[in-house]
């Protein structure tokens, strides 16, 4: 269980500032949902936590140590697209986790080690409800099944921090609710720290124990890229979702302004969603 501390993080590409003055501490076992308008830097923030990108200035520490400059197994990731290896069947997508971890020379396991890893992979497939699809390639799986597979794959790596980059953004609403249930169960079981980027505020309220809203607070009409986004709202949600109260109306209105058009959010919705979950 891992504590993440971000101090005065800034990220710029040339002259364009994407993130500025981002500071926060994420406690072990928290489920942080990150929302914000497109291009507000929420995905950049996630990529920095993953070490896929480096901050321009500021520090991020993970259990007291600075983040290593490249992705490492203690931080798992589920992407929205290309989430599983296309050349491996569902079962082998999970087997490869043990093989990449335990076989640094050949990238393959043999004999008893392979059988153990296969058993573990089979158990995980069953856990996410994909046993019937074990021999299929990702291309033959539906979007929801692919994301189940990706979550299973990330879990097998036993990360201390699980990062989710709009993992359900491409799914139908029904499937999405199913995936919320699964993710919630898994988080209850493992209680790892989770940071999830989403553009769906209902999803954020349903799953998160903490809601982070990214938005720009300073604007330069002559040069919109002059200022970056920072955390404008940091809301702790009741860990017991059934008792979770709707956030204050003015907060929802403010969040709504930052979100892409068409997202219908009313305080009541968030409450209803909380009860469903």
């Amino acid at each position, binding site marked *: 269980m891992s504590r993440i501390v971000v101090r005065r993080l800034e990220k710029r590409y040339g002259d364009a500032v994407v993130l500025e003055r981002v500071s926060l501490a994420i406690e072990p076992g928290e489920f942080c949902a990150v929302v914000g308008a497109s291009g507000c830097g929420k995905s950049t923030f996630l990529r920095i936590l993953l070490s896929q990108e480096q901050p321009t200035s500021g520090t991020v520490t993970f259990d007291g140590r600075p983040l290593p400059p490249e992705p490492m197994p203690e931080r798992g990731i589920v992407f929205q697209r290309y989430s599983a290896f296309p*050349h491996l069947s569902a079962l082998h997508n999970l087997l490869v986790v043990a093989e990449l971890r335990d076989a640094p020379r050949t990238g393959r396991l043999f004999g008893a080690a392979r059988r153990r890893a296969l058993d573990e992979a089979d158990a995980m497939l069953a856990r996410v409800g994909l046993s019937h699809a074990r021999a299929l390639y990702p291309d033959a799986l539906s979007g929801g099944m692919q994301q189940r597979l990706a979550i299973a794959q*990330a879990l097998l790596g036993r990360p201390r921090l699980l990062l989710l980059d709009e993992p359900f953004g491409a799914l139908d609403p029904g499937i999405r609710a199913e995936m919320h249930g699964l993710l919630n169960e898994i988080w209850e079981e493992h209680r790892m720290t989770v940071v999830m980027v989403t553009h769906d505020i209902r999803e954020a309220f349903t799953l998160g124990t903490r809601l982070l809203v990214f938005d720009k607070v300073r604007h330069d009409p002559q040069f919109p890229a002059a200022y970056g986004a920072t955390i404008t709202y940091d809301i702790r949600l009741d860990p017991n979702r059934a008792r979770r109260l709707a956030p204050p109306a003015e907060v929802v209105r403010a969040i709504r302004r930052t979100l892409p058009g068409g997202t219908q959010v009313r305080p009541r919705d968030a409450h209803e969603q909380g009860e469903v979950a």
Partner: protein
Amino acid sequence: MRLINLRPSREGRLILGTMPFLAVACAYLWASAERLAANPDDRLLPSPAQMGSAFLELAFVPELRSGTYLLLADTLESLARLFSGVGLATLAALLLGVAIGFVPRVQAALGPFVRVISVVPPLALLPILFIAFGLGEASKIILIAIGVAPVMIRDVAQRVADIPEELIVKAQTLGASTWTMVLRVVLPIVLPRLFICVRLALGPAWLFLIAAEAIASTEGLGYRLFLVRRYLSMDVILPYVAWITLLAVVTDAGIAALSRRLSPWTRPARGRP
């Protein structure tokens, strides 16, 4: 209905596809018959019977001096050169292409070099190869390899670079090293493309093979073609060209089948469950 919406059926496709072949065959037979009627000793457009007997003689009658079957000897000799050259180029494409596409430092070091090499006309290098390696097998094989390798290397490198970054990052979060990523992610994903590269490279490879054999050789399909040209032996040349075409088509189909076998995930999915 608009022309672009008129789609031929299976049978229609077959009939339409056969028509150009038939048209060329008919035109040839007519012209050949006309010329042979005017002059029975004409050598330019031999009849099918003349071509057949010339071809069968090369295929099944051992040559008087050496006792070898010329067609078989020529074919084996040429294919050995072709596959050695293309094999070397494939190996280079695999090693260098993956290294250039995957490792930024190798890309910085070798990328510009390979780009420059790939625009050198290979046939212009042939005299250098003959001087450096003599007139033997080495220079012919190297000509084929140099002729096709740069394009293959660049193509494989590009495909490796095109692998979605998500997959590479994901592999790293699962604890993969550069080496295990090459083995378990990069190679399997570019393998189908490598096979396509080999198939595309075979065309130019035949060109370089026949050019090299025409210039300096004592055996081989290209050698035979240019040898009998001196006697205007169209009755040998035309069947040989057809034979080379057949070899090329069979090789291509074989590699395509091998690729489907080795990369089953590229086969179209049979519906979603």
